[in-house]
C-alpha cells in the first residue's frame, strides 16, 4: 500500500499553518506536538500509520468552516475523522495533512418524536443517538458492531450498515439531511427533516463519499419506535454450504427477519470463549432475530424452524431469556475483538448475491489452503455481506503481504460472482487499488467528477477511494 509523497512545502510551512489554525480556534482545539499527534496516526486499520501535520478538534460548524477555510487557503489536505474506527483506513492521515476530528461535536440539537427525527452534531456516537431517544421508546436503526464508539459523522462518510440493516436499511436509508461544510468553508444544508429530496439527491451521494466531498457537522436522522420485543434463535448446521442454503430458503419464503448472521466453526469457538453465549458446537451457525409481540415472534419462529428443519440442523436453540439474547449478540458483535485475542487479522467486507453463498464459502476455503493462511467467516448472511477474517502474524516477515494478496483474491471472487469489494466498511486506502476490478475508467471518472464539483482542489481526504494513478492528475492540480 502506497501513499503519495507528502507536500514538503506544506510541511515546511507547519508553524505558520498551525498559527493560523490557533487564530481561529480555542487554544485547546489545536494539537501539533508529536506526542499528541500519535493518537491520530491511524484508525482501526492499524497496519498503516503516519502522524499528521496537526490535528484540530472544533466544537461548532462555524469553527469547522474556519478551519477548512485556513487549510483551503494554504493548500493543506484535510482528513476528517469521527471516532477513528474505520477498518479501511478512511481516517488515516498523511504527513502533510490536518486531521479534523469532530469528536467534541456530540450534542443533541433537537428531538422531534411526532415527526420521528433527531438532529445531532455529527461527532455523537451511534449508540448514544439511540440512547437519547430510548426513554420515549424510539431508536436509531443502523447498528455497526463498533456502535459504542463510532461517530455518526463516520457512519455517514462510510454509509455504515450493521447486523439489523436487513430490515431497517443502512445509513443512507435512515439519513434525512446534513449540514455540510465544503473545503472552502462554505456551509450548505442538504435534505431536511421531511426526508424527501427536492432535486438531484446530493445528500445521497454525500453519504458514503468517505469524507471526500465535505465535512458533515450536523445530521437529521430518522428515529423509529422500538418493536415490542425481539428474540434471536441459533441454528447450527453440519456445513457452511447447508447453512448458506438455509439462508436462501428463509428469504425465498418471504420471511424478513431483522437479522441473519453467520459464523463458521472458528468464529463460533472464539466468540463463545469471549461471550459465553451458549453457541452450539457445530460447523456453521446462523443467528436469526425476529421482532414483534411474543405471539408474533412465536409465529415467525415456528415458520423459520420448519424451514431450518429441512436442512437437518444439528441444533436449534431459542434464547431462553433477555440475558442470553444479550450474550448471543455480544458474542457476534465482539467477533473482531474476540479473534484479535488469538491472532493478527485482516477483515474483508465484500458483498455477494445471497444465492452465491455456498460457492463463495467453498472457494474461500480453497484460497485459504492455497495461500496457507487460516480464514474465519462471520457476516451478515441475509444480505450477502461477507466478513472473511484472514489470520496472519504481523511479526513474521512477508505474512502481511501474503494476507493482502489472499484478501485481494477473495474480493476479486466477490466481484466475479456479481458482488462488490465492500458492503459497509468503505474503500479507504485498503481497497483503493482494487477499484479497477469493479469499475471501468468511465465509471470512476463519473465519480471523481462529483468530487471535482465539491472539492475542486482535491484537498479533502485526497489519496483515498480511487487508485492513486487514477486520481493523480486531479490531486496534482
Amino acid at each position, binding site marked *: 500500500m502506497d501513499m503519495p509523497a507528502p507536500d514538503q512545502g506544506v510541511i515546511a510551512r507547519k508553524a505558520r499553518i498551525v498559527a493560523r489554525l490557533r487564530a481561529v480556534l480555542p487554544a485547546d482545539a489545536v494539537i501539533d506536538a508529536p506526542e499528541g499527534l500519535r493518537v491520530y496516526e491511524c484508525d482501526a486499520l492499524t497496519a498503516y500509520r503516519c502522524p499528521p501535520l496537526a490535528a484540530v478538534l472544533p466544537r461548532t460548524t462555524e469553527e469547522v468552516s474556519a478551519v477548512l477555510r485556513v487549510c483551503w487557503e494554504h493548500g493543506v489536505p484535510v482528513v476528517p475523522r469521527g471516532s477513528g474506527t474505520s477498518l479501511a483506513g478512511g481516517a488515516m492521515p498523511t504527513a502533510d495533512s490536518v486531521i479534523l476530528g469532530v469528536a467534541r461535536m456530540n450534542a443533541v440539537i433537537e428531538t*422531534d418524536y411526532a415527526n420521528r427525527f433527531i438532529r445531532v452534531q455529527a461527532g455523537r456516537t451511534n449508540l448514544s443517538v439511540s440512547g437519547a431517544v430510548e426513554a420515549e421508546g424510539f431508536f436509531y436503526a443502523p447498528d455497526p458492531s463498533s456502535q459504542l464508539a463510532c461517530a455518526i459523522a463516520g457512519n455517514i462518510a462510510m454509509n455504515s450498515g450493521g447486523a439489523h440493516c436487513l430490515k431497517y436499511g443502512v445509513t443512507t436509508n435512515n439519513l434525512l439531511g446534513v449540514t455540510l461544510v465544503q473545503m472552502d468553508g462554505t456551509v450548505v444544508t442538504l435534505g431536511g427533516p421531511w426526508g424527501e*429530496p427536492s*432535486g438531484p439527491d446530493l445528500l445521497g451521494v454525500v*453519504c458514503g463519499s468517505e469524507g471526500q466531498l465535505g465535512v458533515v457537522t450536523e445530521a437529521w436522522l430518522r428515529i423509529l419506535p422500538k418493536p415490542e420485543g425481539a428474540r434471536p434463535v441459533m441454528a447450527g448446521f453440519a456445513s457452511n454450504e447447508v447453512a448458506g442454503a438455509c439462508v436462501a430458503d428463509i428469504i425465498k419464503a418471504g420471511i424478513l427477519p431483522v437479522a441473519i448472521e453467520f459464523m463458521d466453526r472458528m468464529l463460533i469457538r472464539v466468540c463463545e470463549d469471549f461471550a459465553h453465549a451458549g453457541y452450539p458446537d457445530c460447523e456453521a451457525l446462523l443467528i436469526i432475530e425476529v421482532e414483534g409481540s411474543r405471539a408474533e415472534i412465536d409465529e415467525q419462529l415456528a415458520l423459520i424452524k420448519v424451514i431450518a428443519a429441512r436442512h437437518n440442523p444439528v441444533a436449534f436453540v431459542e434464547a431462553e431469556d433477555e440475558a442470553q439474547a444479550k450474550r448471543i449478540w455480544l458474542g457476534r458483535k465482539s467477533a473482531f475483538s474476540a479473534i484479535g485475542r488469538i491472532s493478527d487479522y485482516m477483515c474483508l467486507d465484500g458483498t455477494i448475491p*445471497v444465492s452465491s453463498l455456498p460457492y463463495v464459502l467453498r472457494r474461500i476455503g480453497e484460497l485459504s489452503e492455497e495461500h496457507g493462511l487460516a480464514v474465519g467467516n462471520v457476516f451478515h448472511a441475509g444480505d450477502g455481506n461477507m466478513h472473511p477474517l484472514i489470520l496472519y502474524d504481523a511479526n513474521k516477515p512477508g505474512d502481511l503481504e501474503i494476507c493482502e494478496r489472499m484478501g485481494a483474491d477473495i474480493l476479486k471472487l466477490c466481484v466475479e460472482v456479481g*458482488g462488490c469489494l465492500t458492503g459497509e466498511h468503505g474503500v479507504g486506502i485498503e*481497497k483503493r487499488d482494487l477499484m479497477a476490478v469493479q469499475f471501468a475508467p468511465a465509471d470512476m471518472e463519473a465519480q471523481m467528477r462529483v468530487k471535482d464539483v465539491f472539492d475542486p482542489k482535491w484537498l479533502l481526504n485526497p489519496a483515498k477511494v480511487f487508485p492513486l494513478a487514477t486520481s493523480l492528475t486531479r490531486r496534482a492540480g
Partner: protein
Amino acid sequence: MRPSSEAELAEAVAAASGPLLVRGGGTRTIGTALGEVLETGGLSGVELYEPGALTLVAKAGTPVAEVEAVLAADRQRLAFEVPDLRGLLGREGLSTIGGVLAANASGPRRVQVGAARDAALGVRFVDGSGAVVKNGGRVMKNVTGYDLVKLLAGSRGTLGVLSAVSFKVQAQPEAEATLVIEGLADAAGLAALRAALGSPFDVSGVARHSGRSLIRVEGMAGSVGYRLGRLRDLVGGDVIEGDASAMAWREVRDVVPLQGRPGEVWRIATLPTAAADVVARLGGAALWDWGGGLIWVLLEPGRGADVAAAVAGRGHATLVRGEGGPAFPSEAPEVAALVAGVKAKFDPRGILNRGMI
C-alpha cells in the same frame, strides 16, 4: 429517437446536435424541457431475476407492468409501491422502470420501506457526453465508490439517461388490512396517523383523504390481526381487509380523489405536524400520504406564491399538473451552485432535459 440498445442510446446522445427531451413512457414527466424526444422504451426486458436473492435487473425501458408481472409470478413485488399517475396527469402510455427511478416515484409504503431510491441497487446510464457509466450493482449492501445510484434517482433525466436499473424486491405479505377512521376533522385525523407511525406496530401505509384516515398493516395473518387490534385500541376505526384494503391503497397511491377535476395539482413534502396547517392555509381538496409528510393538493391556477409561503422553512413543493412549473423546487443558492456544478460535469453541453435545472 427510440434506440434499441445501450450502444445505440450512447451513440444517439453523443451525436445529438441539440437538446433532448429524455423520457421513459412519458407517464409522469413534469417540467418544461423541450427538445427532440429520446425514449428509452426500446431498451426493454428483465435481464436477471433471482427470487432467492430478492434481486431484479431490468433494462430501463421495461414497462413497470411487465416487471410487476414477473415478480408477482414468484409472489414478490417492488416494495415501494409504484404510483400510476396517468389518471392524475392525464397521460397515456406505459410507465417504464427507468422512469420510475428517474422520478424516484414512491407510493404509500415509503413510510415503512423507503422510496424507489432506497430499493435501487444499481444503475447503468449514458451521460450527456455519450459515455456509458455503471454504478452500484445487484447486491444488497454496496459502498464501493460514490453512490451515483442515489444521484441519478430523482434526477429526472437531467444528469444521464438510464439504460438499466437493478432493484431489491420484497416478498408479498400473507395478509393486509386497513383501519378506516371516519368523522374526524383534518387536524385530528392527521394526529391519528402520527400516533400510528409512532407506535411499534409497523404500519405500511398512513394516509388521509375525503374525510377518512387510513392505516395499513401487512404481514403474517396472525400478526396483522394482532397489530390492527392494538392500533384500533389506540386510534379507533373500522377494519377492511383483503381486496377492499388493496383497493383503498391504490386510490391513495394513484391520487384518485384528485383525478379528473379542474385546477392545478401541487405535490408538497413537509413535516407531518405541519400537514394540516399547510392545507388549511391553501384551501383546496387534498390527499395526505406518508402520515402527512406528503400532500397532493388541488388549487386554482396562479397560487404558486401562496404555496411557497405555506411551505417556507418546512418543506418544498412541486407543480405536477399545471402551466409552466419548474421540475424541481428552488434551492438555496449554495445548493443550487452544487447542483449546477454536477449538471455541468455530467452533461457539459446541457442537452439533457434542458431547462429543468
